[in-house]
């Protein structure tokens, strides 16, 4: 019971309170680039969630059972990036085979998931937080992906409605998106202090 409580709290913490986009600024590039339409944003979010969960668990396992016992922690970043790139390749092939329209609408952003900061970010933060339990790692890395999905979907929904608004010429596109994101972080700040 106690353990379940800790896991639920960790999940809520990483999805809402410590949302990676809003408090750590990770994954801002796809956040600005792919948030134009809700369905694309949702697809992107799901792909990122899958890759974060997979690579979070794999990097933790490699770190705990290969790098630390063999004193190879100096090659940590290189190992992480290889694992992430492999996971992304897997997702890319899967989406290309089974969801061709989704693949087309992602365009360049699908291979760029491997350079999405959320993914390397969660692997590094799991390492920094010193999480030492596979279940917790799984919950945290899935939560980070879901947090990204939540953030990008909120933004896409707002941007779909923003087409009707009279935005000043110079602020059209990315600038107004950033300002909206700023206001969203303000809203999400209401959650700080609730957990941890």
């Amino acid at each position, binding site marked *: 019971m106690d353990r379940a409580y800790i896991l639920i709290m960790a999940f809520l913490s990483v999805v809402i309170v410590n949302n990676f986009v809003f408090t750590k600024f990770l994954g*801002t590039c796809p956040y600005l680039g792919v948030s134009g339409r809700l369905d694309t944003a949702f697809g992107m979010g799901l792909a990122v969630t899958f890759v974060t969960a997979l690579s979070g668990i794999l990097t933790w396992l490699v770190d705990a059972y290969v790098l630390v016992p063999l004193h190879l922690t100096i090659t940590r*970043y290189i190992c992480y990036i290889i694992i992430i790139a492999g996971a992304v390749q897997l997702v890319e092939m899967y989406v290309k085979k089974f969801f061709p329209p989704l693949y087309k609408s992602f365009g360049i952003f699908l291979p*760029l998931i491997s*350079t999405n*900061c959320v993914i390397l970010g969660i692997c590094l933060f799991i390492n920094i937080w010193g999480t030492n339990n596979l279940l917790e790692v799984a919950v945290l890395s899935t939560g980070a992906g879901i947090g990204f999905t939540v953030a990008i979907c909120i933004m896409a929904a707002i941007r779909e409605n923003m087409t009707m608004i009279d935005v000043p010429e110079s*602020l059209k596109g990315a*600038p107004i998106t950033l300002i909206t994101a700023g206001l969203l972080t303000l809203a999400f700040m209401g959650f700080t202090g609730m957990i941890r």
Partner: protein
Amino acid sequence: MADGNAVKIDYFGSLTAGLWRENPTFRLLIGMCPPLAVTTAVKPALTMGLSVIFVLVCSNIVISLMRNLLKPHLRIIMFCLSIATFVTICDLYLRAFAPRMSEILGAYVPLIIVNCIIIFRAEACASKSNVWVSALDGIGSGTGFTIALCILAGIREILASGKIWDYQVMPHGFVPWAAMQMPVGAFVLLGLLLGLAAIITAKKD
């Protein structure tokens, strides 16, 4: 333009392109994490900028040297590997010689690996041109990025604390804007600066 000058102009152009015409932050909108995350003060921003210049120049040189050996499907992973190597060097250096700065920057130093600027420059420039052009391009883009970081950090630091680089610049009765230190300040300020950049571009054309 005369043919004889073409090579010279090419070199100069690749050095200055990153400063404004292809400024990563203000014009290309790539690598947006560090401008938002490390710009609460000028010092960490400058450290970040210098680290990015170092990694960018080194990885551009290496990628440019091996550009004829690259296979298309292994391209990105080779980029990432060479970048990760230099980031590791940079991270270890910071940990040894600037431990406090390394603590402040935290995970954002290793996150340089996935900074889109570096991959983008590798893809757009280093994998196509010779070593000198790639190195100059790295210096130019890195400097443009550092300048953008410092502008953002300067404004945020002044408004959030009234100080810049530990010097008091605001008058005594100045009330610090706490919001500038928080994520909201970063997002809104960067949005406004991008709007300003758009106005300047429109005027220039």
